[in-house]
């Protein structure tokens, strides 16, 4: 089966800058994966994300090499609105992506732009609101919502287009811990129920690593590591590059350096505690 997202020998340099923001990036993401894109600030993560939904090169110009193919279409050759139907992009700050005065009208925004018939819009809006558990907020104004609710409205607004890929740019950075955890569980549920492919950029991995099938680490514009969370996070380079390795995995690293045999790298403290308890005489 062909991968859903194919990035081949891709480089991009923003107009007016000399250093490429993405350098010879090669990526393949299959249908139904949950992938975390990690790496220090300025490593090229957002450039790659924006190249996946066509904001690059359609909104941002610059010099470009290689290809980005999503669901069989070359993104650079396709209109952004066409790509938008396949790649739903949820930005970091929900405030700046809720345009309308009521939740339901905002969720309908993309569908109105695409010219869907009214009953189809109604059906899809209700479906998306229901999926995100915000049906009761339908008539609320954006400023009446909490941060977590706003985040859900933003996600509903792209889900209404029934995209194949959901991209989330630092979705939890502005949320309190419990709201963040609820959001992560929600993303997992969306993935399980819809079979949607998820690509998340995040600094803090303690919550997300548990639901991801894969972590791709970028450094200085290119892909530095790619593998399962347990494998990638346990590697020394993850720390030197500046990936937000969860405390538990860092401790695991220290202990294995000390010669303790703890099996595979843990992502939750219970796992590490169990492994240690087994060794305690």
């Amino acid at each position: 089966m062909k991968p859903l997202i194919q990035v081949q020998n891709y480089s991009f340099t923003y107009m007016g800058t000399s250093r490429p923001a993405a350098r010879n990036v090669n990526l393949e993401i299959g249908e139904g994966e949950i992938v975390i894109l990690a790496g220090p600030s300025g490593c090229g993560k957002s450039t790659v994300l924006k190249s996946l939904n066509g904001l690059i090169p359609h909104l941002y110009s610059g010099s470009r090499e290689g290809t980005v193919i999503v669901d069989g279409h070359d993104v650079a050759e396709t209109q952004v609105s066409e790509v938008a139907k396949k790649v739903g992009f949820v930005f970091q700050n929900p405030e700046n992506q809720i345009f309308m005065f009521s939740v339901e009208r905002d969720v309908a925004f993309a569908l109105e732009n695409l010219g869907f018939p009214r009953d189809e819009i109604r059906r899809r809006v209700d479906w998306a609101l229901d999926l995100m558990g915000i049906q009761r907020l339908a008539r609320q104004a954006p400023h009446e919502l909490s941060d977590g609710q706003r985040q859900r409205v933003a996600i509903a607004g792209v889900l209404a287009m029934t995209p194949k890929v959901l991209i989330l740019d630092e979705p939890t950075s502005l949320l309190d811990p419990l709201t963040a955890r609820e959001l992560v569980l929600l993303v997992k549920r969306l993935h399980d129920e819809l079979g949607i492919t998820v690509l998340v950029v995040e600094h803090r991995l303690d919550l997300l690593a548990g639901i991801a099938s894969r972590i791709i680490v970028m450094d200085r514009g290119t892909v530095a590591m790619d593998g399962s969370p347990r494998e990638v996070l346990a590697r020394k380079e993850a720390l030197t590059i500046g990936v937000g390795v969860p405390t538990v995995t860092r401790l695991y690293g220290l202990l294995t350096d000390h010669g303790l045999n703890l099996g595979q790298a843990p992502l939750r403290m219970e796992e590490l505690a169990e492994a240690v308890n087994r060794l305690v005489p």
Partner: protein
Amino acid sequence: MIKIESVTFKHQNGTVALQNVSLEIRTGEATAIVGENGAGKTTLVKHLNGLIKPTEGKVTVFDLDTKQTTVAQLARKVGVVFQNPDHQLFSETVSDEIAFGLRNFGFPESVIKKRLEWALEFFGLTEYRDSSPMMLSGGEKKRLCLAIVLAWDPEVIVLDEPTVGQDLVQKEKLREVIKMLLLRGKTVILVSHDMEFVWSLQPRVIVMAKGRVVADGAAAEVFSRPEVVGEANLMKPQLLELSVHLKNPPQKPFADIYEARQWLVSSVSR
């Protein structure tokens, strides 16, 4: 020394942001204020340098009643580093940006020069001294905002969500700066959602929920109370979680991973 006595704050529209809050923050203490969004953390912080005056009750900062003192006078002693750098950077150069506060507080030019050099050097901004602050990366902007405040050497430093959007390396640096400030006897108040970062400082933790203080004590004690963690939408720090699950638990939870390593290695080889 900061004293908050039965402070209630109501917005113009009548919503209550703080409800009968009483606290005392001692000199040289590291304090973290945690709680969900809208719990009143930022409102509380704005009381400390007089940006907000209490509707009822009294706030005293180094024996000054904030109701009778200007924000400028208070800000000289209580430096607040706000979350969003774009809300304050405006100067043509990084140097001017740092000097702005110093000039406002009326330091003599010779002192301004010395403080400026120190701040640029300490925060690794010397190479950008003549560049525009707008040209800096997100992480550098955050560092500049910290440099701006530390340049005038306030007694109390308040950090509002300093780790948002920061990568591991930047967080590590921030932790070192905070440790240095504490060593120099400064008072540090941290507002944060990042429980791992909070835990790594082992501060006094004040938990807020719906405009009230619902817990106040040492980090290990506060985070061990399930009803507090639940009410304020918190999450247990991972090292505390580990201590709970061990067959051979330590006397007090691990403060950092090195302490944890030492204990675990010895408990395994025993």
